[in-house]
């Protein structure tokens, strides 16, 4: 059985085909460009499958990155994967894009901290540790102010490997806060790999975990600004009401 995996949650566009029983990566295509995933995803799938001399009818399972990351990017991947799943009756598995990136630090002796810039001095991140051939969350993924986040990581008092192309924007403050404990990924380690996504989802498949449903949605890790503002307004309204009574 073969699985098609796709990740469009950051600037990196990755697709991979895996052989599930043989636990092998048959092919992988990765780019890291400021270019439109919407335009390039389908032609890239076409190319990779063509190189492997496969058709969509040779694919038996799908995997997609659920986010966090670029809102538009994640939606392109999730919509594409969901539609294929429905059209071909294939099971769809998903995994956090942070977990996918954390896999690049599997061999690191310490904790692994994948990170995407969430703007306004905030990051999407989580702290991961190794469990067998997978990375699992030690501190759950979240969107968090970078200074608060580094406080939490410092408390662990362990070597911490920071992964992702956005890390460089925070390198100085990370070094200042964590000193010797801070380590940084190589250029290759900073790129999430669709093959890692595929292997993580292969694990779910092998464990007979239930696949995603048709109403599956990305995990944005935060509500929209409009909703947050609306809730804030409602909250204020309630307080003033409470004060009156």
């Amino acid at each position, binding site marked *: 059985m073969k699985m098609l995996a796709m990740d469009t949650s950051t600037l990196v566009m990755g697709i991979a085909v895996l052989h599930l029983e043989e636990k092998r990566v048959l092919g992988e295509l990765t780019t890291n460009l400021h270019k439109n995933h919407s335009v*390039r995803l389908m032609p890239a799938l076409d190319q990779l499958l063509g190189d492997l001399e496969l058709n*969509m009818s040779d694919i038996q399972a799908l995997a997609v990155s659920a986010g966090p990351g670029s809102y538009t990017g994640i939606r392109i991947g999730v*919509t*594409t994967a969901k539609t294929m799943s429905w059209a071909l009756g294939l099971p769809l598995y998903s995994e956090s894009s942070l977990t996918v990136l954390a896999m690049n630090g599997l061999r690191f002796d310490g904790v692994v901290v994948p990170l995407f810039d969430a703007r306004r001095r905030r990051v999407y991140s989580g702290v991961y540790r190794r469990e067998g051939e997978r990375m699992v969350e030690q501190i759950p993924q979240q969107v968090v102010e970078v200074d608060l986040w580094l406080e939490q990581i410092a408390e662990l008092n362990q070597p911490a490997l920071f992964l992702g192309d956005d890390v460089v924007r925070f390198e100085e403050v990370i070094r200042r806060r964590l000193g010797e404990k801070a380590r940084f990924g190589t250029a290759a380690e900073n790129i999430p790999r669709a093959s890692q996504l595929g292997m993580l989802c292969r694990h779910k498949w092998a464990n007979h975990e239930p696949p995603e449903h048709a*109403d599956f949605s990305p995990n944005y890790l935060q509500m929209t600004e409009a909703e947050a503002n609306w809730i804030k307004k409602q909250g204020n309204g309630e307080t003033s009401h409470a004060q009156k009574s």
Partner: protein
Amino acid sequence: MVLGIETSCDETSAAVVKGGTRLLSNVISSQMDVHRKFGGVVPEVASRRHVERITLIMQKALEQAGVSIKDLDAIAVTQGPGLVGALLIGVSAAKALSFATGIPLVGVHHIAGHIYANHLVKPLEFPLVALVVSGGHTELIYMEGHNRYERLGRTRDDAAGEAFDKVARLMNLPYPGGPHIDRLAAQGNPGYDLPRAWLEADSLDFSFSGLKSAVMNLIHNASQRNEAIREADLAASFQEAVLDVLVEKSLRAVKRTGVKRLVLAGGVSANSGLRVRLHQRCAQEQIELLIPPLELCTDNAAMIASAGTYQYLDGNFAELSLNAEPNLSLV
């Protein structure tokens, strides 16, 4: 048999149309309730809802039509114009479906869809002039045949529907404001003096921003003088100012092109004042008038499937690199 997909704004819709004219299903999931509390469509909220609903809606459209994916000849999707994030959901879904199944894909212009909503009621006869009025568009289009569009005029600023919504907001009416103004206008008299932008003598373009400013000034001046606004009268005056221009310019377009048919399209087609006025004027001038039923006036995928059918028949297929085009032009 064509599957249509439409996600350009706040409606997630999928539909199956047979032979371009026979509507087999038209599933529309409206987000109106979600956006009402924000007083307008929030793009990010809309995109999130689209991605959640899209697969279920396509599934439902096929179920209701009683067909399966392999019965489809083509997939037609709104390529633009619209909100880019919202459009991308439909485009991504359509491309994935086309790639997975090998069924050809066509990218449809949203306004072409609105015009073809009429085709589902009574087959279009050419040549014709179409007045397309919605929250995003105000255009006069000349069509010589299927897939052949020529623009005669367009708004230079606000769309007519946008003007309705903005004025409704000035009057503190709930979102979406268009229907509220229409309802109030029916109870009032157009006693307030508001401007009509006719532009250059031969122009078939529109402009509604001046009218909106005039309403704003009127409300402002009244509140300065502590005078109450006669709400129904203001609604009637505003609506009449919009309709005067829409109706007269449409008739000018019909006369200038020498056609015998006028087609109304877009969300503002639901405005009862506009329907009545156009009926009267077209009857006077012996022009055949086509107005879609209310459920086909607002955004829906059946109209996209219908328009897409003729692009499919023309062999006008989209590539796998098809992208959402928020400012796509019809001509």
